[in-house]
């Protein structure tokens, strides 16, 4: 038996090398990528790392490329804003009133399981081709984690915290502002983090279907222009931005998480 602190396999390697390990993981990923493209033959060789990074270097100095990046980020931000504007209040109401929770649980779990992309034909028919359709589809995907986590947070607030607040002389408004909302922020951030991940993932297919700008569109456009190396290059950018978005909300969450 290992001692408790050694029980995680390889934990003795951690420490000084700890900070290097993520880089090792990245290098292994790169090696797998290189191996697959180098050993393969035919069209797959177009996606090799060397060609990809060459194209990426061109992309990151091209102003038009940034137009696509910004329009994608804009759609992402609008969808996130809508999810927050609708999801947080709905989550608070659903979490606070037992009847509202009873009434909505089945509905929400049902809606959540419908692929947001299934909404696309309806979105196109109602909103037409364009940003509004893409944002609507993203909204239908990103709403649920915010609603469900906020409601869960409100529903599981330590009742004693409210009792303490009351006995210290707080009225309902003061309790809401100084106890309930701060107590729920970690759950809200969990929901927001999940939502951000979903929105960023759904952004790409949404932009493949209904618009002619943005990173999702750019991937299909690269294929149509036969500039195959551009596809993994754009994928790297998408991954990088997504990772950065998640990291920032994770930092925020860590600051607010009192365990």
């Amino acid at each position, binding site marked *: 038996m290992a001692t408790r602190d050694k029980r995680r396999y390889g934990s003795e390697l951690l420490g000084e090398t700890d900070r290097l390990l993520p880089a090792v993981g990245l290098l292994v990923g790169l090696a797998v990528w290189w191996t697959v493209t180098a050993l393969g033959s035919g069209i797959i060789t177009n996606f090799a790392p060397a060609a990809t990074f060459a194209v990426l270097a061109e992309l990151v100095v091209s102003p038009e490329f940034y137009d696509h990046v910004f329009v994608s980020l804009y759609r992402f931000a609008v969808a996130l804003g809508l999810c927050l504007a609708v999801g947080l209040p709905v989550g608070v109401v659903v979490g606070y009133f037992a009847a509202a929770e009873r009434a909505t649980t089945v509905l929400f779990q049902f809606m959540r399981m419908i692929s947001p992309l299934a909404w696309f034909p309806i979105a196109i028919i109602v909103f037409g081709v364009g940003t509004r359709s893409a944002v609507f589809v993203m909204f239908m995907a990103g709403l649920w984690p915010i609603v469900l986590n906020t409601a869960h947070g409100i529903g599981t607030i330590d009742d*004693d*915290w409210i009792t*303490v607040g*009351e*006995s210290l*002389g707080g009225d309902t408004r*003061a309790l809401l502002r100084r106890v309930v909302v701060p*107590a729920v922020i970690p759950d809200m951030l969990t929901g927001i983090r999940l939502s951000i991940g979903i929105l960023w993932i759904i952004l790409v297919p949404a932009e493949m279907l209904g618009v002619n700008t943005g990173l999702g569109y750019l991937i299909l456009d690269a294929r149509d222009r036969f500039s195959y190396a551009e596809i993994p290059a754009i994928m790297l950018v998408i991954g990088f931005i997504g990772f950065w978005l998640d990291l920032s909300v994770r930092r925020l969450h860590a600051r*607010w998480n*009192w365990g």
Partner: protein
Amino acid sequence: MSLESRPAAADDDADGSGGRSDAASPVGAAADGAETVGRHAADAAPIVAGDLTKRYDDTLVFDGLDLRVAPGEVCCLLGPSGCGKTTLLHLLAGLEEPTDGRVEIDGEAVTGPDYRWGVVFQDPLLYPWLSVRENVEIGPRLRGETPDADHVDELLELVGLDGVADADTSDLSGGMAQRASLARTLANDPDVLLLDEPFSALDQLTKMELQDELLRIVDELGVTAVFVTHDIDEAVYLGDRVAIMGPVPAGIEHVERIDSETRSRDDEAFLAERAATFERLEAVGLE
């Protein structure tokens, strides 16, 4: 950590009673509410509970219970788990409604929680998103007031937390958290202090240390206090009177008056009082 005898309150003899009657008060009441006590403080508030009945569905917790706590007095409610002592404290604090009867603090009917009757709970229940200092300030803030920084400093010093004012609550030990909780309640300048087994989760040494500090604080601030506990030593050491509660629905079976002039953990006279209280507990069928 002080184990020696605690000095009697300075104004003990000023009231002319020259120590108090050794006779225990009649069951459930010190009917002569005007009687002065060791820690008598002129501006402290009396607590009067009259004909209190509490019933949960089929369970009668107590019936027609009377309790009077004189201004500046420390009254301990002693009894085993489930005897209704916490329920009684909740009724005094307005956290629960009596089925029948009434509670008055300083002549005012208690109809709900209020910052003037401050409660210290068994768990510290600090708000983890606030620092120690912000927790102490939360009472005034909840009431829409700006906390007085000097007063908060004094309180932190009073409970010995002036060094960790900016720490996160998660960094506090159990004893420190309970000190912070006490300071938070005191920041509202309550007229009475209602404590619900506040030290029961602490180790023995910390517990004794906090008992001494609580007595010092109660003396210094001159508040009336009701202290719920299931620990005989604690009740006898802290209380001017110890109200012994029997199994439900007995209510208060006996009130033991403690001579706080001999208050000590090892004085013989005091140990005798402890033994007497223990016998009373046995008599009401608790052991």
